[in-house]
């Protein structure tokens, strides 16, 4: 459907370099990257707002690298929506149809149809100055979708809306994708990737450094940067050592964790997912692997339960469910035990 071949572009001091990407029809592709990683620039290259210095962009077996932006029919939803303030909602949505010189009756009918689908028919005659973030986004989506683009590009679509509206927008985007629209969605929030993506790419310093299904990327990050993007906050620089045919990771002088069988370098990083830590208020049975005694130093309510900070010789961040929190009777400064099953420990080689 969309193929990027070795795409490069220099923009000031920043450079997008050697981007290769292949996206099939109907894919929901989430491109993760922090601000300044080149996400927006990449979307602008695909949309045709900028031309690459080298490389090619293919859409449906057609090389569109040098095709005019107006002829690409690729919809781009800007981060702050770029709603035209000198037009009503209707004028915004109808803008692209006017470019096609559609008949007036046809324009009105199509605007009402898409507005009805996106639940904004009641605001069509309003000017855009007093619309909420969610309404602005629906207007921007309607304005883009009315042309039935071949591909929909979303630049940080959740960045400017209230948390309470995010679920609505996610449902809407999922529905649009299920109707067959291929979507590339760029964001810095890994949770959006988890919720929406059929494929995830991680962009760092203008390069895609990992790509795959969300599960693969988040379970097996290729480096520390990707790991951070997958929400992992428990990072430890460790040295590895083989003792009695078993591998251990030395986090510091007192904390040693047992690893699953494998081959490990002398030094590297140990990553522990926050949801891979088990909390116990009683001492676990003798022989439990990687059992550490610690003290709860902070408790913060989170989306699905609580986020605990535990000092167990190493500082651990653990996400536990509200049920587990109640059952274990956790409170601040309580002494607890944590278990870190070897299969939940992720080892990264190399410095990054």
């Amino acid at each position: 459907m969309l193929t990027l071949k070795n795409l490069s572009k220099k923009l000031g001091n920043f450079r997008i370099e050697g981007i290769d990407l292949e996206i099939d029809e109907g894919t929901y592709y989430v491109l993760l990257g922090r601000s300044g990683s080149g996400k927006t620039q990449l979307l602008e290259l695909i949309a045709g707002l900028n031309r690459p210095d080298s490389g090619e962009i293919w859409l449906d077996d057609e090389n569109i690298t040098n095709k005019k932006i107006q002829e690409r029919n690729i919809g781009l939803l800007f981060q702050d929506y770029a709603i035209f303030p000198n037009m009503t909602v209707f004028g915004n949505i109808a803008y692209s149809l006017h470019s096609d010189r559609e008949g007036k009756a046809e324009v009105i009918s199509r605007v009402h149809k898409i507005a009805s689908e996106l639940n904004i028919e009641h605001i069509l005659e309003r000017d855009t100055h007093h619309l909420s973030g969610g309404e602005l986004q629906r207007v921007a989506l309607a304005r883009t979708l009315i042309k039935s683009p071949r591909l929909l590009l979303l630049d940080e679509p959740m960045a400017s809306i209230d948390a309470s509206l995010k679920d609505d927008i996610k449902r809407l985007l999922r529905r649009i994708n299920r109707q067959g629209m291929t979507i590339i969605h760029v964001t810095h929030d890994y949770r959006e990737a988890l919720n929406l993506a059929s494929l995830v790419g991680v962009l760092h310093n203008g390069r895609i450094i990992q790509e795959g299904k969300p599960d693969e990327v988040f379970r097996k990050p290729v480096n520390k940067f990707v790991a951070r993007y997958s929400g992992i906050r428990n990072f430890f620089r460790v040295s590895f050592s083989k003792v009695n045919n078993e591998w251990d990771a030395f986090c510091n002088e007192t904390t040693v964790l047992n690893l699953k069988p494998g081959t490990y370098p002398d030094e590297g990083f140990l990553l522990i997912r926050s949801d891979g830590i088990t909390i116990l208020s009683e001492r676990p049975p003798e022989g439990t692997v990687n059992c550490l005694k610690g003290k709860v130093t902070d408790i913060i309510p989170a989306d699905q339960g609580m986020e605990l900070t535990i000092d167990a010789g190493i500082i651990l961040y653990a996400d536990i469910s509200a049920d587990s929190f109640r059952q274990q009777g956790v409170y601040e400064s309580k002494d607890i035990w944590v278990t870190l099953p070897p299969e939940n420990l992720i080892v990264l080689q190399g410095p990054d």
Partner: protein
Amino acid sequence: MRYYSSFNLILLLLSSLVLIFLIAPLIGMFLHTSTTGLIETIKERDVQESIWLTVWVSFSTTFIFAIISVPFAWLLARKDFPLKNLVQGVIDLPVVLPHTAAGIAILGFISRDGFLGKVASSAGISFVNNPAGIALAMAFVSLPFLINAARDGFMSVPEKLEKAALNLGAGRLRVFMTISLPLAWRSIISGFVMMFARGMSEFGAVVIVAYHPMVAPVLIYDRFSSFGLNYARPAAVIFIIVALVAFTGLRLLSNRKKVTYSESDYADS
């Protein structure tokens, strides 16, 4: 509290001084002008012709140069090109030149020995002592006000809006006419008013290019130098009133808010 009160008092005093400095000469001029003197002066044909000439030449000059210069202002706002700073400096040059010097420069350009003068005279046109020459002199000294205001206006329009319009399939011209221009409109009108005003009030450059036909500032000067203050004053008052009416009208026009492209624009008529 006492500190703030004293501070406010000083502010009030300084502000009043500035305002009195600006308004007092004008009020004095109005007070020293009798109603009968004003009415008699209004009836004078050369005063009427002079004010009309000043207004229409300045307005049409501003209008014509706006059509040429506004796209240039967009270019300055949006594009980077070699020697852009130099170009910006050239645009501001007329503001810092003595206006008589600007008049000499324009005269050299449009006189029969100058480039434009030669071309025009071959077509039987003379710019010297002609409204066209006056227009060029007015434009030369006042154009920076329009270009700079329009450029600032375009710079204040988020480029993203233009990109969004392009992405929606609009051509560059349509994006300019439906997005850039309407959103920079207030600044452009503001620049238009400033250029118009500056053109109308121009004396130094115009008097060198064309003493006749007389624009209002030249007429006022002519009356002052030939007959004295009392004879020049009514013409000056009338010109000020006309200028104030014109500027207020244009300002009101620029402050109008308009949301365009609603469903009613698509209703079949």
